[in-house]
């Protein structure tokens, strides 16, 4: 089988790193894989370098010639229209399996809408069609007065997915949380496979867990990462303020950086905001860290590379008890409840200070679990199983789409008993026979 794997592939891209791991493993398992870069090529992107690949790499922007002979196309899609531009565009022309990295595609939708062109979607039309009049009213109420409240919070209540996924032959999510959002909105074969990922440096010495306790948050620092809550937790607790320092590593908006710096300076805290770093610097940050903090509210990702990096580092990890993070076994990480970040975080940090040996053991257990749970080899095997499911469902999908065309021509919608009849007949024709 020959797979064409559409993906961002620049070195700083976490989706690129995941893709590099998976295509290498697929190649090891005998699959002929070509990588098709889905980004809009820019000078910065070209300067950033690319992950290594086991086979040919071409750009979709140049026509994606290396993908022409592929038996199956795979599109990685996330909430960044520039990184995934040629997958949003290409999926219509060449349907395939979608690997969905985010459960909110509002940013990508807005980017595609702003890019213009004949096929560009209209943001409000898509929002209303997928989420209803209430969502549109809410957007209009917030977009001017409180844009951050919409883009970083309210969008979680109104997922837009169908505009991007309606032509998918099958969908892979990386958490049950993401699958629970996709399943009622997009009717297509769906599976969940834990994200394949590794860390920038797999083996680190155990954390010191001594004063000063170094706390670390990594990744693109958007407001939903609750960095302000971490600062507030330290600022309001004299013991933690005296015994902890905090480093925020990754791309960050100027407004968020200014807020953090001002708040921490006023409270006399030692907080460092580095901005974006390369893999070597990230490895050094993880090596020097004692505790990794991965908070989200709301949770907009289908899976988190940074929490996997945190667990693989062997450091104790503190996560929000929401979204994909809620699926990590509670014995391996400390969890804080959404809405109670400050108090729960203080409790978790005091627990680490009071019992460092237990925290160290928990970090080691999390590392062992992450190595197995997020292993690329197991991911590739499950992905290939899903390719078989998608191939088997192709006839059903084609038939349903033909029925839809006919019904559209008649102006008929399948309601009530008609829908039941369609489901029943097609289940008899195409359903896998399973003992009841």
């Amino acid at each position, binding site marked *: 089988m020959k797979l064409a794997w559409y993906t961002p592939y620049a070195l700083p891209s976490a989706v690129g790193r995941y893709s590099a791991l998976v295509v290498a493993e697929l190649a090891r398992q005998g699959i002929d894989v070509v990588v098709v870069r889905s980004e809009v090529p820019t000078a910065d992107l070209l300067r950033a370098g690319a992950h290594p690949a086991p086979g040919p790499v071409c750009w979709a922007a140049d026509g994606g010639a290396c993908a022409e002979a592929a038996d199956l196309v795979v599109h990685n899609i996330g909430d960044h229209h520039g990184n995934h531009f040629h997958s949003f565009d290409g999926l219509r022309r060449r349907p395939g399996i979608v690997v969905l990295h985010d459960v909110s595609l509002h940013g990508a939708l807005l980017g595609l809408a702003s890019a213009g062109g004949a096929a560009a979607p209209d943001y409000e039309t898509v929002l209303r*069609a997928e989420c*209803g009049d209430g969502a549109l009213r809410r957007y209009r109420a917030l977009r001017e007065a409180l844009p951050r409240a919409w883009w970083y919070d309210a969008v979680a209540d109104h997922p837009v997915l169908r505009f991007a996924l309606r032509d998918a032959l099958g969908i892979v999510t990386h958490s049950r949380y993401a699958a629970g959002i996709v399943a009622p909105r997009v009717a297509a074969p*769906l599976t969940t496979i834990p994200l394949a990922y590794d860390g920038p440096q797999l083996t680190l010495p155990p954390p010191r867990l001594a004063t000063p306790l170094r706390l670390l948050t990594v990744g693109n620092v958007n407001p939903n990462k609750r960095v302000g809550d971490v600062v507030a937790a330290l600022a309001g607790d004299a013991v933690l303020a005296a015994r902890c320092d905090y480093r925020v590593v990754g791309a960050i908006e100027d407004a968020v950086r200014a807020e953090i710096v001002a708040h921490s300076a006023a409270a006399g805290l030692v907080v460092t905001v580095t901005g974006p770093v390369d893999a070597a610097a990230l490895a050094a940050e993880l090596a020097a860290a004692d505790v990794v903090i991965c908070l989200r509210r709301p949770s907009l990702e289908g899976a988190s590379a940074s929490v996997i990096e945190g667990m693989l580092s062997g450091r104790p990890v503190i996560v929000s008890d929401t979204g994909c993070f809620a699926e990590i076994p509670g014995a391996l990480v400390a969890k804080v409840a959404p809405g109670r970040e400050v108090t729960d975080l203080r409790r978790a940090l005091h627990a680490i200070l009071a019992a460092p040996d237990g925290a160290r053991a928990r970090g080691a257990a999390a590392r062992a679990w992450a190595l197995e749970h997020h292993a690329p080899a197991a991911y590739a095997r499950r992905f290939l199983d899903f390719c078989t499911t998608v191939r088997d469902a192709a006839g059903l999908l084609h038939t*349903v789409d033909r029925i839809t065309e006919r019904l559209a021509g008649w102006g008929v919608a399948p309601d009530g008993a008609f829908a039941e009849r369609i489901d029943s007949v097609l289940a008899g024709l195409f*359903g896998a026979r399973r*003992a009841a």
Partner: protein
Amino acid sequence: MTTGVLPFRPSERIRMLLPVPPSARAAEPAIPITCVQGLGRGAGVAVEGDFAGFHPLELDGGVPFAWTDGHGTVVCRAARTVTLRHVWIVVHATAPHGASVEVKVDGGPPRHLARVRGRRTVRINLGQRVRSTEIRLELTSPTFVPADAGLTDSRCLGVAIERIILGRSVAACAAAAWADALRRFDRSRSGRGA
């Protein structure tokens, strides 16, 4: 005996793909389940709701209800400012093994509620009287897929909601629920259904 299991529900895919004219969309019912008011005699308030994260309305023996997809949001709006303190959520059904339902009111902290199994009314005391024209409820629960148990329904379901009852007091909610039940009973006796 064997049954055919599909990887998705064909009728849902047809609904997803069918081009629906904007005018038809606007005419779709905006309220899949009923908001009932117990806001005091003579309040004369029309309570309407916006719903997100709900599957289409279904009927069970004439009783309308709608399943959440795991994250259902209901915004109940009144035509003018009302005072309320209690919110009752009538759960029509859950997964066979039950479900833990978490409710957030107006974006506040989550209220962790007792495990719900089958039909049950979840009663929330807001703690203080709220004067507002709207209240926003977010219902979060684990999901299940009936198709995993061999059924043809491949939807991802949370909990099924039958009614939202808003009231100033427990007695007002109880009276509204009772009056609502009587109305439904009368309708079913007269053969008009719900």
